């Protein structure tokens, strides 16, 4: 009995650990033994497989990890410098009060079932998303109205200057062919048709022969879903043309493959609760007496050596981050700071945190202590947290790290720093992180500054995108107040993580725009322009 149990226990971890490898032992992708010149096999992480299918209303292309929906067309697109260009749209006007957006669309677009795409489909899509979407917040949209075959009017509840960025993530679905099974059998007007989806394994796309834009060069795209080690093994076996990987594999080499690194705005950073310690009505702690002191927060921001962190944890594959939106058109470069340990020590001294025994600072008999939380499944965040811990020790702050699940992380982050990952192709992210909610503080970490709120409200009310970029920048820092080093600095941004891929040496991957948060579908945004040498 005992031995049977022992054996059972020992095999459980083994079978759990190897489960994902089964995927790659089967012949991935196509049945052809030789890859045709115009097809490509891409390996992505298992979490990239769209859980709720290819319905834009349920997260395809939108939400936390934005990317171009491939199957569907969008009204606008974001360009390589993250400004706005047109896809379906041919013109876009906003009324002076910012309450009405008028968009005209192309009249030569057909869905892949042969039906024409009209303004009615656009209206239907936006109403569906507004009513059903779990990932898009469309409360600012009152209604969409089809004025004629090719003109749509969006009537807003309140001015929303960054509406073009919202339009860039909503794939247009056909009203006549939209039903409960749409997510599994999507019909769109985009560059590709979803041909086959073997859940848990692969998705096969084929080029849309009637596409209205430039003809896709890659006729067939196969996306496989596998864990990092399986993707690495698949690349070693030559079974995939492009495989995602991470910094921990970057010192390896694979014959016939090169390591591609793309800069991103996929940042990592910690929140420093800017409120004194107390607790909410449920007894959950809120605020933190150490990080409530702005001098301490400033000291941490300049006391962290971002370059050392990138070299240590990311093997050099990353860039220093100073804001949640580095290199975006709405980024204020005043946020940049340089590493200054003496300055940090002086700030801590000024704040009354004097160096005590064992190299840990104290104030009024209280030791400077922090718990840095990280999501327990993420080894990169764990290593970043550990490196932050080491660097804080040098400043005289005794930090410990603790892995937590996302079920408790949000609540615990209200009183302790959490290792976050952000980075989106819309300035709305600044609003989500720094703007005060009705409860009197920002959503993810206690912080509130009415001046900052005012600028962001004004940015949303602006009628022209360029004016709004300036207002977003002023929210970050207007010369007197804001949330950068000289301001309130309630979040410390550490690094932007390069997205790494093993790519077949002969595969020419088209230029990428800065990838947002999420190491998944972004890479195939322009797969139609990839080529083989």
């Amino acid at each position, binding site marked *: 009995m005992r031995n049977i149990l022992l054996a059972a226990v020992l095999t*459980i971890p083994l079978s759990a650990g190897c489960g994902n490898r089964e995927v790659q032992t089967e012949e991935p992708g196509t049945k052809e033994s030789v890859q045709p010149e115009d097809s490509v096999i891409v390996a992505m992480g298992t979490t990239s497989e769209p859980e709720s299918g290819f319905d834009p209303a349920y997260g395809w292309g939108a939400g936390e990890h934005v990317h171009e929906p491939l199957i569907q067309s969008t009204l606008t697109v974001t360009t390589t410098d993250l400004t706005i260009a047109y896809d379906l749209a041919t013109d876009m006007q906003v009324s002076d009060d910012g309450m009405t957006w008028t968009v005209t669309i192309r009249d030569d677009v057909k869905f892949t079932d042969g039906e024409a795409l009209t303004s009615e489909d656009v209206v239907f899509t936006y109403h569906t998303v507004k009513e059903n979407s779990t990932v898009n917040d469309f409360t600012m949209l009152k209604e969409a109205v089809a004025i004629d075959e090719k003109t749509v009017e969006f009537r807003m509840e309140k001015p929303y200057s960054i509406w073009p960025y919202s339009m860039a993530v909503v794939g247009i679905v056909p009203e006549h062919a939209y039903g409960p099974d749409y997510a599994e059998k999507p019909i769109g007007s985009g560059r590709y048709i979803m041909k086959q989806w073997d859940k848990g394994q692969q998705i096969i796309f084929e080029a849309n022969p009637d596409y209205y834009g430039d003809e896709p060069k890659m006729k067939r795209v196969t996306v496989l879903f596998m864990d990092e080690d399986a993707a690495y093994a698949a690349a070693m076996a030559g079974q995939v043309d492009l495989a995602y990987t991470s910094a921990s594999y970057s010192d390896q080499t694979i014959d016939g493959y090169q390591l591609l690194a793309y800069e991103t705005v996929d940042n990592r950073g910690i929140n420093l609760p800017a409120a004194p310690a107390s607790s909410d009505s449920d007894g959950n702690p809120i605020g933190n007496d150490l990080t409530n002191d702005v001098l301490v927060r400033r000291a941490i921001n300049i006391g962290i050596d971002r370059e050392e962190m990138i070299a240590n944890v990311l093997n050099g594959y990353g860039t220093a981050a100073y804001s949640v939106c580095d290199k975006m058109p709405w980024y204020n470069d005043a946020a940049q700071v340089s590493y200054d340990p003496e300055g940090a020590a002086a700030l801590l001294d000024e704040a009354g945190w004097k160096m005590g025994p064992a190299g840990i600072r104290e104030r009024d008999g209280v030791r400077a202590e922090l718990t840095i939380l990280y999501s327990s499944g993420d*080894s990169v965040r764990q*290593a970043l947290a550990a490196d932050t811990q080491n660097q804080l020790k040098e400043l005289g702050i005794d930090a410990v790290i603790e892995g937590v699940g996302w079920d408790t992380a949000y609540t615990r982050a209200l009183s302790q720093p959490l290792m976050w990952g952000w980075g989106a192709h819309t300035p709305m992210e600044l609003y989500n992180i720094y703007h005060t909610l009705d409860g009197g503080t920002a959503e993810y970490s206690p912080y509130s500054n009415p001046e900052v709120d005012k600028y962001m409200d004004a940015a949303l009310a602006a009628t022209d995108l360029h004016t709004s970029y300036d207002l977003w920048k002023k929210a970050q820092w207007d010369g007197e107040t804001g949330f950068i080093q000289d301001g309130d600095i309630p979040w410390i941004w550490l690094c932007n993580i390069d997205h790494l891929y093993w790519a077949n040496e002969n595969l020419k991957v088209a230029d990428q725009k800065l990838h947002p948060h999420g190491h998944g579908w972004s890479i195939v945004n322009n797969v139609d322009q990839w080529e083989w040498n």
Partner: protein
Amino acid sequence: MKRVNGRMAAVLWLGIAVVFLTAVTLFGWRVAESALMTDFSRKNLPPNGAYFFGTDWMGRDMFVRTVTGLSMSIRIGLLSAGVSSVLALFLGILAAIMGKTVDSVITWMIDLVMGIPHILLLILISYACGKGFRGVVVGVALTHWTSLARLIRGEVLQLKEALYVRTAQKLGVSRWEIAWKHMLPHLFPQFLVGLILMFPHAILHEASITFLGFGLSPEQPAIGIILSESMKYLAMGRWWLALFPGLFLVFTVSLFDMGGESLRKLLAPGSTHR
């Protein structure tokens, strides 16, 4: 030279087991702090003179981490096996002496817990208790008592028919007093062996549940965590991350097993002549 007989070998094995396990537990406890320490200047080193088991991707000393992990496993094992076996003893005796209804309720509970795969129940309980040290201990304690309880119940049922117990009954001694004075001393060897043989289960279950991510937090130096992390690096040729901790886990568990077996031999009445 005198031949080593079975009894002496048993004593020897028991001694080795006790000394090794105590040493690992105490040493691991002492170096627990440095097992958490990361140092990126020494990451991914293969085994060498300074770091016997090499270092991992955050530059943590795998030897210290392994020993601390085992020490923690042993402590978790002791605590949960202890709680579990006391529970088993109590319920086993209760089932046997308290009459039909109590007996059928307890037997039903034993069947119920035994009917669900250990690891599932363990994950469920650990998750409900908020994972971490407490989750694992409560989970292991609440799932491992059944077979010992059943054993003790059978033993007590047998004892109830013994002449001296029946005499005591006739003399009007209360049920509790009989259980305490006349039965417990008789049950003690079974209890002790059962307790020790429960350790390896407890340790392995702690490792598996942590491996699966439902136990301790991943910065903790637990054997299950070390092994699950090492999986990722095997493809990169970092064999030392899995090999040594795995070997040590097997070694520790086998030692407990052998220690328990030796003790059983020593306590068994017939063994004096071997």
